[in-house]
Every structure is written in C-alpha cells, then in structure tokens.
C-alpha cells in the first residue's frame, strides 16, 4: 500500500457530522490511502474536544448492523448504531458496544507470526505466495467466518479464477441458530431456499418454539425492535408472546407464558396446537391430521387445557405468528419441528402479511440465498483435512478449534494439513494451532461490506470502512492475498490494485440499481456516499412471500426426537447472549451479567433447584457432566425456571487461548456434543442426554444479583 494520499484527505472526505444525523460533507474523488501523521500537523477537525464520526459495519456477528463510530484524535471512542441503516435503525446490542474492547484489546496479534516469532510482511507475503504456487489448486482450502462478506466474495473470485476449492464458511452462531434447518424447511415447504423472516413487531400473538430471538438468533437487534413493536401498547393492543422451551432463556423470560415442554416434543406440540386451532377455525389441514393433542399433552408435560388455551388464542388472533428456532431445531427431528411450526403460520394464513412470515430479502447483488456450512458439512471438511486432501488451509474470521465440538476432531485434523495459515486478529485457539498467523485488521480498521441476510425489509448492503488507522502491524487479508497472488502469478494474479479497488468493483453495479436510497453518477462519488452512509440499500421491500399453497397439505411428522447418550438429563446448550462465540476476550462483555442468571466471568450449569436438592447439590458446587462425547466440570446455578430433567449451559467461555480475559475461564459446552446431526445437517446440539456426577469441589460464581434478596438464601427460615 503506498502512502500517496494522507489520512487527512481521507478523513475530510468521509467525515460525518453527528452520530444521529449523518451529513454528506464532501463529494470528491474518494481517496482511500491511510497514513499516520504526527499530531504536530493535526487537521483542524482533529482538535482537542472535536470528534469525528464514521459509518461502518459491526463485525461482532454476521448480522451486519450499521455503526457510527465516534473518533477523537485518531482513536475510536464509542460505537453507536447507524440510524440510517434499515437493519438496526441506530441501535446496537451489547457486543456492538464492546467491539472497541476488541479493537484496543491488550491481546491482539500485533505482527505476522511464524510460530512464536515475528516475521515481516514481505516474508509473510512470500509464504502465502509459496503456499498458493507450490500446491495443487485442489489442495488449497479456505475456511472462513460468516463475516465479512467482501472477503468471502474475494476468495470466491480467487477460487473461481484459480480453480482452488470454494471457500467454506462456518460460525458457531449459525450452528446454534440451526440456519441450515431453517432454510431447508423453507425449501421443503415453500420450494425456495432462504431465511424466513418473522415479523414479530406486527403480530398479535407469537408462539416461539425455542427461538431465542432476543439474544443471538439471526439478527437480535432487529428482532428486539420487533419485540418492542409487539409489546408497544401505544397504537394497538399489547401483543402476547408464548415461548415453548425446556429452560427459560432470556427470551422466554419476556414471554407472557413460558411452556417448559419436554425436549423433543416440539414438533408434536406444534402439530397438536395446529390440530386444535384448525378445528377451532374450521379449517381442514392434513398436515395436522396425524396429531393427537391428548397424547402430545401427556408426552410433553403440558396440560391439555393449556394447549387448548394457546390453540384458541392462536386460532382467534388476527395476527398469529409461530417461530421455530434455537434448541427446538437442534434436535434429531429439528427439520420436522421447523416444518411443523412453519405450518402453523400457514394455518394462521400470515404469509407475506404484517405480523407474518416472509422470506428475507436477498442483499443487493445477491441472486440466491447462501448459507454457511452446517455442522455435517464441516464434518466432511474435517474429514478432507484429516485425509490429507488439503496441503494448505487458510482460516479467517472463524475459530473452529473452539467453535466446533471437539468430538468432530477439527484440532486433530489440522495435523493432516501441511500448512495452516490463520488471518486471525486475536490469538485464538485456531491461531495457536496454525503454522503462521498473518493478522487481519480489526473490523473497525477494515474496509468491507456485509450483506444483511435477514432482519431488514429492504435489501441492505452494510458498508465498512476503517474508522481509525491500524493500531498494530496488521494487514488486510485481501491486500495480502493480492500481493501474494502477484508473486505467485498465473491465475492467482488478480488485477486489483488493492482491497479498495476490489470493493469498488463490487459495489459499482449498485450505481445502476433502481430504488437505491442514494445514487451517484460516478464511482468515486458513489463510494464516498457508500462510506458516509455506511452502505447502500433499497427503499423498497425486498422480502418475498412464501408460497403458502401446499403447506397445510404436506404430511408432517410429530414423532419425538431421539437423543444420543444414556444420561438422565436433557442437555440444552445455548449461546451466551452477552458473549456469544467470540466475545470472551472483551473484558466488559465478561463483566456484563447474563440476563437470566446475572453470572459474570464464568460458565454455569443451570439446574432445577428441586433436582439439585434431591441430588444433594448446592449452588456453586462443581459437578461433572458426562455425555457420550465428552465431559466437563462446571459449577451449578440453581435456576428456578428449568425443567427438572433438563440442564442448560451457556456457550461462549472455555477458551484455552484468546487472550488474558478469555483464557482458562469457564467451560465450553460443545465438549459434550459430537456427531449427532438432524436431517438438515445441523448439529443436534440439544439432542444429547447427559449424566451428572458430584465432584465435591466448589467454585463460587460471580453474580450481580443478590442470592439473598432474589432467592432468600441466608435470610433466615421464614423465607
């Protein structure tokens, strides 16, 4: 990267006036070269006390929320939601707020590394070039995260050009979201793949089967806005919300009714409700015919009256909506659950209506839905690795050693790969196993874009730009690959000068798209606006209406799911709403209390207090949990809102690397999971039964709440 243009010019052109009111300040040719300058020559807008705001895209998950980052004297100070971005409308989740603790994390990879020693970027470029040149195309593999999309596009282009393996994308969040199951169910029922979008905000009654949409599911900020709309009693009646889930997640905590059904009976219950509701509505639906409400009530542990009551509400509401998700899909019959729940929507006749189900809008320039790899696909990938089919593996944006269940053997399979090159910004577990780490910039130092997969009505492409100069000696992966490609030559030598040129080439077609919320006559002006507004999106609804015709006539199976293992407890892992898969190294995320248990800095296992009492287990007792695939030791939290036959453990901790705040803290519940998939290939993460053994150890959990005030522990006998 040459230093032709100064950062000053760059900032001038991309400065945005205020956090909430982005004002277009300059329309000239966008310069894209960043150079650090001493403060001696401080530009006037970098004076003390004056802040500059930049629009970019949040990289903490793949949802693609727009951010406005406040910077002051070249430092990123605060992130806010980009009010223009139709996905998050100025809002962020906690992880978006804490992304600055990633940027300024004390444990970043500061330089390109070979093992434990620093090397220069020239050497690094040579290493990549050699890796590309000296291996057969089919021996080169890319494993990438779900963000950022521009890098995925670049690598896809590279793969196309050079004939190497198409990049594989994976992320633990999509694994726990059961994205593959959702899209597969949509395909089965509507004949079209895509992520269903549930308009919670417009609904009157929402039945959620395990969908933890207020936490990490698909696009939490957008769904939380939807939830607020459901509840907002200003303009309409306050919407009702029923959650079917074996443990009360923080989403279920907001439900008017929480139905702790037995895990594995979700499909049966959904069909039973469908049957009852169909009868009440006088609709004949063969989908529900096989259902037996009495039987379902008995097997799921729900009272029949409760089922009837819910069915009645569902049948008679003007805006009924049913959402499948989370642990309900992460079972051996997950696909059946998804189909059964979607069928309820068909019964409610809400497809394409306010408060109903849509197929999410495809992002600009996207022609078809493209989902990340399911766990089963990852297993195939791992098999290829283990079999030595890959000589070189590039890993970016994902930490599979941590995120995939250990039993799938990713870590061991890495030994079958000749050369592992990680582009990780942080010293994560995968980077620790890699031969080389060529750190990419942090998301806030990076160019890019992210396609909004779901959550916004419009097709949205969230744009990213560096808000600060790179803090460390890191390099954009695209720049590295471009440079290496030049050295490697041949098909690897792409014609782009750098990342920004690639980006421009990608967004250029949008200039000619109709209904854009801004347009520009030339690419430079367009890019300036793209950066200033934080992306490009249409002003029209891009969602499609699912084909409802045949859904009610499909035959549905309400059979109970099968569980792996012999234990007496159902095991429900869930993604920590505050940490998610990659938040553990951000100290303020660690210090955020979990919304359900208020535990900070650690992992717990939620057990029903009665069960714990029967087993002689107290709060903070460390128990060993054994599944067919592994075991772990974790302290107990006596959680009043979980089935007595179920335990739940949050996912997010248990790192063995990943910096001082994450290391050796808590456990990773995927250690209990293994080769256990549903029909859509998603991991049946909630389809495992486990045993609990006492260890006699204690580990006090840090809680924000008072165990005395909330549970009456230690308050004397009367409580």
């Amino acid at each position: 990267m040459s230093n032709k243009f100064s950062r000053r010019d760059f900032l001038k052109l991309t400065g945005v006036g205020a956090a909430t009111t982005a004002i277009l300040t300059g329309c000239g040719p966008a310069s894209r070269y960043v150079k650090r300058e001493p403060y001696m020559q401080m530009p006037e807008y970098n004076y003390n006390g004056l802040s500059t705001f930049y629009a970019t895209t949040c990289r903490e998950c793949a949802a693609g929320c727009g951010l406005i980052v406040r910077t002051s004297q070249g430092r990123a100070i605060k992130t806010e939601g980009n009010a223009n971005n139709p996905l998050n409308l100025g809002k962020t989740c906690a992880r978006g707020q804490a992304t600055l603790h990633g940027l300024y994390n004390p444990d970043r990879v500061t330089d390109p590394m070979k093992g434990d020693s620093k090397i220069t970027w020239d050497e690094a470029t040579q290493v990549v070039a050699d890796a590309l040149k000296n291996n057969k195309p089919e021996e080169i593999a890319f494993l990438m995260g779900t963000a950022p999309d521009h890098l995925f596009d670049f690598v896809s282009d590279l793969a196309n050009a050079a004939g190497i393996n198409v990049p594989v994308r994976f992320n633990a969040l999509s694994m726990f979201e059961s994205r593959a199951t959702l899209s597969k169910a949509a395909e089965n029922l509507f004949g079209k793949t895509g992520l269903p979008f549930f308009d919670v905000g417009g609904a009157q009654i929402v039945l959620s089967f395990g969908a933890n949409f207020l936490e990490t599911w698909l696009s939490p900020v957008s769904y939380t806005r939807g939830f607020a709309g459901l509840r907002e009693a200003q303009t309409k009646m306050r919407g009702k919300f029923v959650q079917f889930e074996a443990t009360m997640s923080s989403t279920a905590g907001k439900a008017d009714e929480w139905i702790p059904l037995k895990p594995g009976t979700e499909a049966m219950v959904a069909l039973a409700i469908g049957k009852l509701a169909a009868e009440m509505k006088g609709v004949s639906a063969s989908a529900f015919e096989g259902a037996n409400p009495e039987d379902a009530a008995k097997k799921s542990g729900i009272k029949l009256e409760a089922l009837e009551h819910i069915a009645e509400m569902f049948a008679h509401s003007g805006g009924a909506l049913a959402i499948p998700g989370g642990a309900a899909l992460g079972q051996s019959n997950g696909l059946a659950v998804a189909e059964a729940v979607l069928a309820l929507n068909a019964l409610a006749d809400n497809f394409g209506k306010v408060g109903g189900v849509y197929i999410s809008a495809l992002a600009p320039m996207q022609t078809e839905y493209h989902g990340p790899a399911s766990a089963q696909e990852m297993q195939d990938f791992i098999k290829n690795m283990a079999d030595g089919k890959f000589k070189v593996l590039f890993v970016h944006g994902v930490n599979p050693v941590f995120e995939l269940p250990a039993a799938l053997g990713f870590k061991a399979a890495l030994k079958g790969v000749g050369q592992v090159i990680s582009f990780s910004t942080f010293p994560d577990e995968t980077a620790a196993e890699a031969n080389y780490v060529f750190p990419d910039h942090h998301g806030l130092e990076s160019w890019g874009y992210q396609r909004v997969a779901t959550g916004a009505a419009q097709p949205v492409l969230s744009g990213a730009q560096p808000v600060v100069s790179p803090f460390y000696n890191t390099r954009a992966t695209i720049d590295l690959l471009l440079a290496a490609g030049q050295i490697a030559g041949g098909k690897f030598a792409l014609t782009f000068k750098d990342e920004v040129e690639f980006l421009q080439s990608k967004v250029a077609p949008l200039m000619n798209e109709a209904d854009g919320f801004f347009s520009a006559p030339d690419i430079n002006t367009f890019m300036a606006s793209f950066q200033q507004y934080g992306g490009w999106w249409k002003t029209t609804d891009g969602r499609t209406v699912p084909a409802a015709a045949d859904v009610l006539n499909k035959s549905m199976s309400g059979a109970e799911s099968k569980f792996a293992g012999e234990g007496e407890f159902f095991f429900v892992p869930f993604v920590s709403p505050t940490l998610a898969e990659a938040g553990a190294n951000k100290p303020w995320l660690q210090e955020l209390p979990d919304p359900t248990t208020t535990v900070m800095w650690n992992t717990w296992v939620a057990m029903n207090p009665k069960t714990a009492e029967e087993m002689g287990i107290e709060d903070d007792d460390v128990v060993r949990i054994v599944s067919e695939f592994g075991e772990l030791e974790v302290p107990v939290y006596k959680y009043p809102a979980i089935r007595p036959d179920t335990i739940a453990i949050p996912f997010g901790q248990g790192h063995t690397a990943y910096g001082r705040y994450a290391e050796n803290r808590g456990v990773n519940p995927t250690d209990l999971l293994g080769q256990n998939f549903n029909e859509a290939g998603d991991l049946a993460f909630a389809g495992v039964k486990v045993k609990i053994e006492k260890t006699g150890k204690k580990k006090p959990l840090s809680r924000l709440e008072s165990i005395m005030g909330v549970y009456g522990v230690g308050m004397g006998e009367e409580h």
Partner: protein
Amino acid sequence: MIRPEEIKMSSEETGKWGMVIDQDICTGCQACVAACAMENNVTFVGEVDSGYGRSMHWIRIERFWEGEYPEVKMTPNQPMLCQQCGHATCEPVCPAFATVHSQSEQLNLQVYNRCVGTRYCANNCPYQVRSFNWRDYERPEPLPNQFNPDVTVRRRGVMEKCTFCIQRIHKAQDKAKSEGREVVDGEFTTACAQACPASAITFGRIDNPESLVSQLGHRSHGVKHLEELGTLPNITYYKGG
C-alpha cells in the same frame, strides 16, 4: 447572595431531565450497560470483585422471580440507575460537598476530584446505584485508547454514578447555543437510551410537556421507585403486562 427563601421547596420541584423506562419491552440484553461503560469510562473489576458486589455498573438490570416451577415467571427486567432525585438523600450527607445538586440541570452531580471516599452517599442512596472505586482497577494498554475524553477517569477511593450523560447534555446545549436556538427534543440522548435495541429507555426534558419523555411519562400506570421516601425521582417506570 442567595436567600433561603429562593430555594424551591421539595413539593414544588419539577425536575428538568428525566427518563421513562418501559420494563415491558426491556429484554435485559445489557446493551445499555455496555454502552454506559463505554461512554463513561466505567471500569470492569474482574471476576472476584464483581462477584463480591463491587462491579461498577452505573446501570444494572434487576430481575426477580415469581412463583415456583412450572408457574415461575421472571419479573419484568428493571434497569436501575441513578434516579437523579429532586430531593436526593445522597447529597446532604457528603461532608466534602462532593455530591451536590445542579440547579441549572436539576441533576445530582458527583464531583470526582472532591470526593474523599467516605461512602456515606452510597449508604444513604435508597436505590443503591452508586459505585465506588474500591481499587485502581487495571485497564492494560491499549484499552485506555478507548476512553471518552469528555469524561473523567476515576481513580481508587472515589464514588461515581450515572450522570445522565451530562457531557452529552452540555455538548448539545453548547451546540444549540452556538446556533442560537434551544436544544430540540430528541437531538441527543444518553448512551443507554441510544443503544437500547428495544427503545425501552426514553430520555428528555420532563419540564417540557411537548417532549416525548413527558408524553410517555403521563401515561397512567407509571411508577416512580421508592417515591414514598420523598426523594422525587426523575425516572418513571412502566411495568407493563
């Protein structure tokens, strides 16, 4: 010279800035807590101290339980922060005048550099929303790069609490003044309200009947916490349901 008569009696106190918090839509996602920490340079304290009641959160989300399994319910999440009382019990007890009432903003100020750390104010706060810097908590380099230059970084031995993002209030007022106008409702907001994905927190002028916060605040079923103590809190809660 100010005469005692000029001071408004507590019953006349109306307040200036206020909040309405809708507990019915608060999902407890902690975005406000993180946003507050980032905006106000609130430090993290680590596992041991946070488990011992020393976390520095300026805003915390409380939740309780009602009933027993399976009829158990989580009570509506209750974000608890400084209520910026009109008649604040924390203020008179500070021997050093480190916590005083702002007459222009009707806020409860904490003067960090005047605080000697008697912690009397925190004892006397019925809402228990003050946090004390029990130690100099370490924020290793380069984390301090993120510090908000508008907000003082506190050292050990100093009390702190929610300020209603007074730095934002001042910034907005300065800007409005330089443009020769009044601050417009919604022109700025606190970090917590700005981040809240559910928009459960609304901030604004409660002395302006036209403002959104006043409009929301005048709904019938709002609750002011521990109002019976005569603290004149400026935050209205809606439990919903």
